[in-house]
């Protein structure tokens, strides 16, 4: 089936081809950023790329309706090499409510401009960003952070991680002193 852009907004408010997401009157989100207008996003992926993305997208479709749930979108983007924050994902989804996150489904053609937007983000984190972010916690200025400290930061700041997530992340990263060389750590994180 040709990837037409018509059916863009199946999950969003209206199915108008012109305006994809304009959920302005929904004050559901605490720090509500302005709604994003995806209709201005030009999808630049090659047909080959789109094939690949479609395949990955399909892996997440557990229902068989060629769609995925809103709350799966972050993971699909991650699977495709992106690192959006949960907040950024919610924003491209049009700041859905928690119910919508759980219940609404998105089809591939609507997903593509969202992915493109994330890919285009000029504020994407780089190796240097992550290293410098972690360097803040390098108390001794020797290129290491204490694993225990990092665990607390990850669990209390930003988009808090659960203990299970942190455990999975830190597995095998601390040396015998409980320290982590953060450049090596970031390299490892970015290698996949």
């Amino acid at each position, binding site marked *: 089936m040709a990837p037409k852009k018509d059916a863009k907004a199946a999950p969003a408010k209206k199915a108008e081809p012109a305006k994809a997401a304009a959920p302005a009157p929904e004050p559901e989100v605490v720090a509500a950023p302005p709604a994003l207008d995806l209709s201005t996003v030009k999808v630049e*992926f090659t047909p080959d*790329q789109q094939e*690949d*993305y479609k*395949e*990955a997208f399909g*892996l997440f479709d557990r229902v068989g309706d060629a769609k995925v749930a809103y709350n799966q979108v*972050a*993971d699909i*983007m*991650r*699977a*495709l*090499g*992106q*690192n*959006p*924050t*949960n*907040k*950024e994902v919610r924003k491209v989804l049009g700041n859905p409510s928690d119910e919508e996150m759980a219940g609404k489904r998105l089809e591939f053609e609507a997903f593509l401009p969202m*992915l493109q937007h*994330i*890919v285009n983000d000029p504020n994407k*984190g780089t190796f240097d*960003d*992550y290293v410098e*972010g*972690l360097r*803040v916690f390098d*108390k001794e200025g020797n290129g290491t952070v*204490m694993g*225990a*400290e990092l*665990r*607390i*930061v*990850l669990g*209390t*700041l*930003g*988009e*808090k*991680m659960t203990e299970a*997530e942190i455990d*999975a*992340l830190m597995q095998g990263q601390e040396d015998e002193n*409980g320290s982590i060389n953060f450049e090596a750590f*970031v390299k490892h*994180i*970015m290698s*996949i």
Partner: protein
Amino acid sequence: MSECKDTFHLQSGTDPNRVVCPSQDGCPKTHEEDIMDIPLDDPEANKAAAKIQASFRGHMTRKKMKEDKPREEVKA
């Protein structure tokens, strides 16, 4: 008084007496000398943390996908 090496203290903006120690369950050491402020309310710190966490989550998702499926590497 010896310091607890793996202590990392949080002082929330509102309650300076609130401390959290990872070895909470029976860490007998005094922690005063090892206090470090985590800027819980600082938007820049939180933004930086969120970026790092995003990279971690991305990594873990991709790692899991790799483990579940032998070869599915796609780069956007």
